[in-house]
């Protein structure tokens, strides 16, 4: 298993946001997480690289228990890419520097080699001509594609996407989804929190429906979208589809 989650609980103060999540995600699997806002789906994703501290339960990434206090979390994170809703590019660094910072500082790769490795990534996300510009001059869709390239530069084993298209103008969503589709085809293990039901249906190997801090239902997309069993799932899908 690439990712195993066992009885994961997460509270913010007295509010319990995750109320016992169990999940297994296999290598090369693309899992989409859907659900209403406030259902805990982003929190769940952020627990997978410990951006949120876990209250109780266990999270295993390639067999490493993240909740073990002795774990080198920085090393694990270098294997788990993360793409954020608001891109979080480094505004004081050029596109190329955004991409090469991780390889240079975390992996100790020489600057020249890191830059050479970054160029094919920029090509992959369709932004070869933007290497030397600063993020502020990019559109939202371009920023998000740079953010994906930045994560890929670490050669991650898993990619986490936290509502990657939610902050984008509708006409810019397509390019980002294309890049994600290509990644899925190449066999990247992906967990995608999304409101893009079309993407979940087309690209997802499995869809998790979350509500009120638990996984209410999970299935292959055809079944979950075509024939949902849980009344909450039915209600949610009737609103968004």
């Amino acid at each position, binding site marked *: 298993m690439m990712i195993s989650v066992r009885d994961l609980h997460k509270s913010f103060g007295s509010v319990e946001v995750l109320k016992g999540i169990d999940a297994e995600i296999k290598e090369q699997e693309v899992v989409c997480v859907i659900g209403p806002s406030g259902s805990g789906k982003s929190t769940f994703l952020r627990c997978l690289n410990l*951006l949120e501290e876990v209250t109780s339960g266990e999270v295993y990434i390639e067999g490493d228990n993240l909740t073990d206090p002795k774990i080198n979390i920085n090393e694990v994170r*270098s294997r788990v890419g993360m793409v*954020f809703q608001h891109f979080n590019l480094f*505004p004081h660094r050029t596109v190329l520097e955004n991409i090469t910072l991780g390889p240079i500082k975390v992996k100790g790769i020489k600057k020249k080699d890191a830059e050479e490795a970054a160029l094919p990534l920029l090509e992959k996300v369709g932004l070869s001509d933007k290497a030397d510009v600063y993020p502020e001059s990019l559109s939202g869709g371009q920023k998000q594609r740079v*953010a994906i390239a*930045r994560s890929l530069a670490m050669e991650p084993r898993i990619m986490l996407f936290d509502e990657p298209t939610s902050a984008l103008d509708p006409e810019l969503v397509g390019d980002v989804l294309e890049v994600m589709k290509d990644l899925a085809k190449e066999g990247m293990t992906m967990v995608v929190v999304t409101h893009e039901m079309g993407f979940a249906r087309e690209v997802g190997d499995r869809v998790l429906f979350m509500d009120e801090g638990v996984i209410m239902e999970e299935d292959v997309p055809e079944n979950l979208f075509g024939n949902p069993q849980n009344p909450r799932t039915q209600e949610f899908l009737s609103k968004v589809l």
Partner: protein
Amino acid sequence: MDFITESHYYRVMPMLFEGLVWTLLITGVGLIFGFILGAIFGFARLSKNKLIYGLATVYVEVVRGTPILAQILFIYFGLSDLMGVNIDKITASIIAIAINAGAYIAEIVRGAVYSIDKGQDEAGRSIGLTRNQTMRYIIWPQAFRRMIPPLGNQFVISLKDTSLFSVIAVGELLYMGQQYYGATFAAFEALTMVCIMYLVITVPTAVYLRRVERRLDV
């Protein structure tokens, strides 16, 4: 030309230039140490460790809650008395500026670091950077840019504060002006020139800072 060279406005200048050198030296060296103190205590104020946070808060509040004139007298007379040694006037002045500005700069540093979007930290950590690397390569460079206008403002404030050191007879700008009119009774001329000398430094600084601020806004 004689009416110029013989006027008090002209004759006071050599003394004022000497005073200005000391004013700039005390301000400059004091602020270098003040920035170091400010960075240390600014980060301490961001610390989750209650003791570190508490100590830094006490420092900031004590300094900000007492007049700098009391602080310089405390350092120059009070500490000398306590330790039974004479502290050099210039050294005492530099220490006073450093400690005083350090408290204000600590708040500038804390505010600037705190103002950087949390997503920047998360993005850094998520590619595997350590906490320190994230601070050094991502948060600090962005925070430092935001510190430039308030630091420039602090420079102007500290520069003017050095005039208070005339009370312990430090030969800074205002003191030199006082010396001149003490001997010549030309108080109006001497103090006019003293003020012009301050303005020659402070006004261009303020103009420059406004320009930097506008650029950072964009």
